[in-house]
């Protein structure tokens, strides 16, 4: 039976396991608890979690997020071949179930492909999907003709290309993606943020990832671009 791995460090018990159970409901899997000893290094803790995640039954892992870049969670997300949910300290899930998910997409085929299966899964589970696209220097459209009409044309095509799952709606912003992910997650009262990413913490998109994880106040599902 597929399993959601809840990697529990000291003091993170209810937060991580709670989120793991919510995620399990969506992916229709069981949960398995992995207790991470306190007296091991961050590297050893990461290795322990990665080994458990690599087991065939594990479909994803849920771990606590830490602000320190040397924390085990960041080592895990950079190396994991499967999705990982990072739960920030004090994260809140507003509803009894995960019912609204924010999916930031930068419009590249890679990011769309990365979260396509996740989107499908969430849609089938009846989750309200909100796609967020932020216009910045890299993604700003070349043309925006009439403000009265361009938005509809652009939105329809963006969703068709990147989030063809029925029912997803698009929120557009301009500026810093990281900032807007946090803001929109709060404004829309999202229960979860799902991000496809390259697993490179030194790349530009990593700022969005770190900011989302540490500031959004809700769990963040990180889907490696290579991941199925």
């Amino acid at each position, binding site marked *: 039976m597929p399993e959601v791995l809840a990697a529990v460090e000291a003091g993170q018990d209810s937060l991580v396991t709670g989120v793991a159970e919510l995620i399990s409901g969506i992916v229709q899997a069981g949960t398995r608890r992995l207790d991470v000893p306190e007296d091991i290094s961050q590297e050893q803790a990461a290795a322990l979690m990665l080994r458990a995640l690599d087991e065939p039954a594990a479909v994803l892992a849920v771990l606590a997020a830490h602000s320190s870049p040397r924390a085990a969670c960041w080592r895990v997300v950079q190396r994991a071949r499967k999705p990982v949910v990072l739960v920030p300290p004090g994260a809140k899930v507003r509803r009894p179930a995960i019912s609204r998910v924010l999916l930031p997409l930068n419009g590249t085929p890679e990011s769309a492909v990365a979260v396509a299966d996740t989107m499908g899964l969430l849609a089938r589970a009846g989750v309200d999907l909100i796609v967020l696209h*932020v*216009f*910045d*220097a890299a993604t*700003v*459209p*070349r*043309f*925006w*003709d*009439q*403000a*009265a*009409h*361009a*938005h*509809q*044309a*652009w939105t*329809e*095509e*963006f969703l*068709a*290309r990147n989030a*063809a799952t029925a029912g997803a709606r698009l*929120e*557009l*912003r*301009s500026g810093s993606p990281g900032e807007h992910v946090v803001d929109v997650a709060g404004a829309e009262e999202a229960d979860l943020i799902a991000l496809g990413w390259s697993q490179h913490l030194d790349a530009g998109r990593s700022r969005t990832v770190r900011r989302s994880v540490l500031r959004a106040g809700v769990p963040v599902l990180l889907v490696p671009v290579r991941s199925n």
Partner: protein
Amino acid sequence: MLAGHVLGLRRSRRRAGRAAVRGWQEAVIDRTFAAVVLDWGVVVVPDRGASLRAVRSRVEALCADGVHVAVVGGTGCADVDGRLRVRPSGPGRLLLGLNRGSELFEVKADGPHLLRRRVASEAEIAALDRVSRVLAGTLASRGLDVRVVAVQRDRSKIDLVPEPSWDCPAETRIGELGAVVAGGLRQCGFTDIRDVVRLGAQLAAQFGLSDARVTSDANYVEIGLTDSPDSMRDILAVLARVGIGPGLVLAVGGKPGSPDAADGSGSLLRVRQAAVSGGDYPAGGFADISPAGGGLQAVLCLLDEQLRRCRKRRVPSVDEDSAWTVRVTGADRLSPRAEESLFTLGAAGFATRGSVEEPTGQSVPLTLAAGAYLGSGPGQHLLPGPRWTGLDIEPAPGGDLRMLDLRTGVLFREEESGNGPPMRSLRFASLTLPGVVALRAEASVGRLRAGSPLQPPHDARMRRGRIRDWHWARVGGDGGPGIAAVAWQRLGRDGDTRTVERVAAYVADPRRPPALSRAQEMASAAGRLGFERVLAKHRAAWAQRWETVDVRIPDDPAAQLAIRYALFQLWCNTGRHDELAVGARGLSGTGYAGHVFWDADVFVLPALVSIDPPAAQAMVRYRLRRLAAAKARARAAGREGARFPWESAATGEDVTPLSGHVGGDMVPILTGQQEEHVTADVAWAAVRCAEWTGRSMHPARPGCSLLAETARYWASRCRHDPGGAAHIDGVIGPDEYHESVSDNAFTNVMARWNLRAAAGAAERAGEAGSESRGWRQVAESMVDGYDPVTKRYEQFAGYYNLEPLLMEHVAPVPVAADVLLGRERIAASQVIKQPDVLMLHHLVPGEVAPGSLRPNLDFYGPRTAHGSSLSPAITACLLARAGRADEALAMLRMALDLDLGDLTGMTAAGLHMATFGGIWQAVLAGFAGVSVSGGLLRVDPRLPTSWQCLQVRFRCLGRRVCVTITPEAVTVGADGPIRVQRAGSQPRLVSGQVTFGRLPESGEMNDA
């Protein structure tokens, strides 16, 4: 691309030969051709005395089914027609290309008619004689025994083996003869017979026959003025005039047309060739073609195959000419919805998106009718009509090739992988039967099912039913617009292949349900003609269209194709000659809801008037019929005259939405209230249409009342300061980054032009009075922001006080700068969305100061974000006029790629009509420098460095005009007298054609 398929067959017994040929045909020639060319030598070989009844019956049958047939031979008409004795009843034609390319006949019911004969001049005859004598003398001096055999007046022959034993050898001895000749030549120091041919060609050129045809046979070298490929060229030229390109021609014979591409004969390379001669037929100069077998039997099988394919309603082929086809394969797909927009087909005010036949989750199949709007207010949108292209195909095609043939207006699709017969389809919107559309499709039996020929549009109700074999469907009505369609379809089978043939006829009415009877009449007319004839007439009409309007840029085939694509879609998305509303995305998608903007008046109409003048007049009629609504709108604003809306649809009321988005930011929309230049743009378009078509703005004509009413509006709109200067406050110019500005130069100068044009029209009509004098006074007092020192126009009052931000410090252009930096930031800067002041130099160069184009280009160019799809093409035109043609070309390429490369990311919602209009204006007015005013056609070209030749064909002043520009000369030709002026010279009346020398390019077009 060498498209010939050359096939060889071994000689075999008759029954085995038939089976072999059939298998070969099924495997290889899986195409349905529009014309067949027969080599007479193969038809009569091996038995020259045999009856040709079998050939005759097949040729007559093919012609009756609409397939054109041609015969190419070395003998004369008496021989060929005397033996073949075909008397075709049509619609397919029978052509005879005889006497080695020197004569072309068409055989009709009453016999052969000479179409063309190449007659040698006395000088040419003398030259031929000299060439053959000198060549024979040269050969003899090297020890070869030869004899000159003068056969006809236009050729001479040298027999390399003049021995009686080799007179008229049997086909079976041809190989032996060739060996004798080769041996003799080698003994005399020649490598082979090709050496002799080359020597003959050199001598011919030396004696003034630079275009001589020097060929060889087994034992002859022939020098002539024509040869068999000339017959093929003549035949292809006749077929091209009815829209049949070389790729639709099957040539059956022993000696396919020359594979060399000299003299523009590259078209020969696209002819499909089947070599079916028997025995050791020499390959002549074509070393890569294998001798073949099968002979007459193979010919009959090929003809039977084409007859069967016709009668089984197989999908016709397409001429895959890269100069005329837009192709998409699996490797280079855009988004499927963008591709659907690109493959839109239309005619007569109806258009259908190029969606694939089978239903997909991604598809947006749509058929729209011009002017049929549903809803009210800003929510008005074009009514979607019944869909006619849907088929059930299971499994759906995987990889496929989709090809839009611009020359014949058809969309072709062919599956590229899979087992069994590939899925194919071909569809078109008839150019000769308004509202009629047709398709054929084929796939393996069990995989293709037709389904209902008319299906409901997405999210809309449709009523439907059947009357005997006819299906009907209707949408809309109930007090509003309606679209109705009647269709029939036939299912068939050809072996393992299922075929579907479907024809539908559409009618629309903007106010009420259209009568089904009209649709049924059209569908019946199509039914009586049959699919093949409807397609044939459609192809021929497109060929005629391209003969009148076209662009040729030999040095830039990519641009040439993209410009042709722009013309194609302008035609497909317009096409009505009664009243024509052209929405921003035409009829190619739901984008912009079909609303009509200034795009139509300023970008589309100037192009359309040069390619389809009645359609341009229909666009003016659309505005004229909404003059009452415009007057009501002016009254509502406390003004006089007529005030046209920013966005218009069914009634002429303003349908501009009140809110929208810039990027993700919701914003109030002020264009409906403030972008008032559209009123002058509408008047300008009416005048442009009149000027270009050579019709004056006579007071009796409705266009004059439009001019007067719009002038009245401007006169009432202005604010006069204590000094008497006229101002226009609270507007938006073409640059929509800056709102609520005063004295926008474009608005003010267009208003001034409008006032002066109306006053002038009144004065010419003898109706000058206080009102027209008042218009002139307002015009004279209009503030325009011009500084004679800098020669620049300030875009609006206070523009120079804004932050002097240049685009090089913002982002590479084109870019939606307001989305990137936010509206407020951009509004506080000098960054502009698109040409604003510079639009004056494009539209009303007589209203701007001479010599002011370059200073304003230099100033505003670096400040232009080009964040509007309207911008690149017009900028290209302006740069060309300013003598910066290479920069202009770079901008033109951006415009050309806007939809074809989906640069906006929004082509899925429809094609950008204003860009297409701007492209044609950039080519015609920009690079070719064509303008029309006062009944005079002016030409002042500016070619980019990489274009050594530009030819444009267009319509103006009631004429069909062709302008050809090279570095040395400008040639203007017309189909009737026309006044022409080359810049720097005096106007002259031209009948036929005139050539001017090119002058050095200097100055701006405005500097008169």
